[in-house]
């Protein structure tokens, strides 16, 4: 079966970006990248960083699919462990 190269779009559908804990990314680096990539303020980035660290993962963004994929790409290419999924 052929693999699609195009992005299927369903207008109105919301997608979550999830950041997962891992053994190698340091807390200050995660905090910095959440501010830089996800545009969170200092406090929100801190809370999300600790949620990832303590609970194994956290939703760090809610977007349309295209944006969710773009954010996921940026997190991944900085060495973070991330994924995206339909919200709700």
């Amino acid at each position: 079966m052929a693999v699609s190269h195009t992005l299927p779009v369903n207008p109105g559908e919301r997608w979550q970006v999830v950041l997962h804990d891992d053994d190698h990314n340091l807390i200050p680096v995660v905090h910095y990248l959440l501010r830089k990539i996800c545009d969170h303020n200092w406090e929100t980035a801190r809370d999300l960083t600790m949620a990832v660290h303590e609970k194994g993962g956290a939703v760090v963004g809610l977007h349309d699919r295209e944006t969710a994929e773009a954010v996921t790409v940026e997190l991944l290419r900085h060495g973070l462990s991330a994924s995206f999924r339909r919200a709700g």
Partner: protein
Amino acid sequence: MKHQSFSAQPVDGGVQVDMSKGLVWGWGRALRLLSSSYVRGNPFYALRDPRWVLTQPSLLRHLYPDVAESPRQSEEFRRRHRDALADRELVNRVRARWTGPRPIVLTHAEVDEWIAVLGQLRLFLELLAFGRKAIPWASAFQHLLVMAVAPDTFPDPRSQPASAEEATS
């Protein structure tokens, strides 16, 4: 044993990075290996036996296995974003500065590129048995770069004293 050091300090115009010759040489080679592994269809990439190249998973599947709700969606995602996930020009830019003339003074944009490539290199090293010892170094280098551009970054709470008494005891 040779002392290996890496430092990143804010200076006028950016961040000055200093490192030992051993780091220049050793990590420069690692960056070259990462860059060459991003070549589409490289049949001699270390993880792939050339005899079985058609059946072995790609590098990106090793690096980013489960990014979506299903394996098929993950594969589609990797293909859509392959150029960004395996950006050889980015790695080559970082490698050129890493091994290039001294002193190294990076702009903040270049620091962000170094943080990204070090993250990718760490993922890559995880796949190579001989590279795993270097993984904490990549994390440490990222940390030093982050603290140089954003010293107000949230610190690791495990490195902070739990109370004033603990701090002064």
